């Protein structure tokens, strides 16, 4: 039904386009090309990489791209909410680091020589998930509270909280017998829960956390598109005054958006803890930048109130494909930062251009 409706809309759009004057047609074509310049360019690069390095399209490589994307998807979905409110969240990476280290420290194998808390018995994985998500949610709630109540820009609030989280993380790592070391030697129940697999593709196992990311994405799609909270989030993002006048509780919405984002950082931290296997203070470093880049590429606008879940997914996957591809081309790691920066700049310029045209 939905597909049929989309098809009809597409046909109608095409018929409208055909009826236009040549000048207008040319203008529309130009607009389309500029608005999608980054996608066209990145697709061309991906095709070129696939042609010059056929191993790029092997099952192992595709599963690698899929699992790396899945690991980054929850954090990107969280940050997307903050961006829709015309904000951002710089504390996301550090929140992931803290939650990953807490999860790892609670789920170290009993009998492991360098166990952080030597007397701690095996904790059930689900209890740790709840705790980790709660820690993330508290961090998010603090961000949201300061943003909404003190009327501060989330940039400065989250800049402050990321420092607080980092300090807390460094202190946490000195607890027990750890003395600032990396936390490894994780319990089998934790690693198999995240890295285990029950489906293989082309002989390569698809890790479980890919399915968790999928479930989270479906939940987030539902929250964004089918709940009053989701509608309020977009309303506050596009015009907080209008939303307030219409009866939306702006403060509550902002706090909830950041709390939800924090919970998603917790989920990412829990996944990363087992995925990486050895967690230190550097875990999660700069994750927020990748997530913000993915959101911007995926069309979540810094202007506010604009963004789609499918855009975030596309941004995350596209960014990951490009960086796996660049590794295939043996591009210098330092150069990859420059490429990432340029991609973000182009995405922002295109976003601003779309906004100006609409205005």
């Amino acid at each position, binding site marked *: 039904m939905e597909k049929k409706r989309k098809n009809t809309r597409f046909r109608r759009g095409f018929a409208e386009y055909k009826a236009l*004057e040549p*000048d*207008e047609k040319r*203008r529309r074509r130009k607009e389309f090309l*500029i608005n999608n*310049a*980054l996608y066209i*360019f990145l697709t061309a*690069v991906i095709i*070129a990489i696939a042609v*010059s390095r056929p191993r790029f399209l092997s099952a192992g490589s595709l599963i690698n791209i899929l699992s790396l994307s899945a690991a980054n998807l929850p954090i990107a979905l969280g940050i997307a909410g903050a961006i829709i409110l015309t904000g951002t969240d710089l504390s996301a990476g550090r929140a992931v680091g803290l939650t990953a280290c807490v999860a790892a420290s609670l789920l170290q194998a009993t009998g492991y020589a360098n166990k952080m808390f030597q007397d701690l018995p095996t904790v059930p994985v689900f209890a740790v998930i709840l705790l980790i998500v709660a820690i993330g949610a508290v961090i998010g709630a603090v961000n949201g509270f300061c943003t909404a109540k003190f009327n501060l820009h989330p940039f400065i609030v989250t800049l402050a909280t990321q420092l607080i989280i980092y300090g807390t993380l460094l202190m946490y790592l000195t607890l027990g017998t750890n003395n600032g070391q990396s936390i490894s030697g994780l319990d089998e129940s934790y690693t198999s829960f995240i890295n285990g697999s029950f489906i293989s593709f082309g002989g390569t196992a698809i890790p479980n956390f890919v399915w968790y990311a999928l479930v989270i994405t479906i939940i987030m799609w539902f929250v964004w598109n089918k709940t009053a909270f989701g509608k309020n989030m977009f309303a506050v993002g596009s015009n907080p005054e209008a939303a307030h006048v219409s009866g939306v509780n702006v403060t509550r919405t902002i706090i909830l958006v950041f709390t939800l984002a924090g919970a998603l950082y917790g989920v990412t931290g829990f996944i990363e803890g087992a995925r990486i296997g050895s967690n230190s203070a550097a875990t999660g470093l700069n994750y927020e930048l990748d997530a913000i880049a993915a959101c911007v590429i995926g069309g979540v606008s810094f202007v506010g109130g604009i963004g789609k879940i499918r855009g975030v997914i596309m941004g995350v996957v596209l960014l990951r494909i490009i960086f796996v591809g*660049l590794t295939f*081309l*043996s*591009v210098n790691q330092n*150069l990859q930062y*420059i*490429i990432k920066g*340029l*991609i973000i*700049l*182009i995405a922002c*310029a*295109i976003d*601003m*251009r779309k906004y*100006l*045209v609409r*205005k």
Partner: protein
Amino acid sequence: MKRNIYENISIPIRILDITIGVLLAILAFIIGTAF
């Protein structure tokens, strides 16, 4: 009469167009050298 979308805001959009073009060219050059 056709609506000119560049009305009043022609300069910023042109600057953005040029910026996007220049940045894409730099990116293409950097990635191109890797092949």
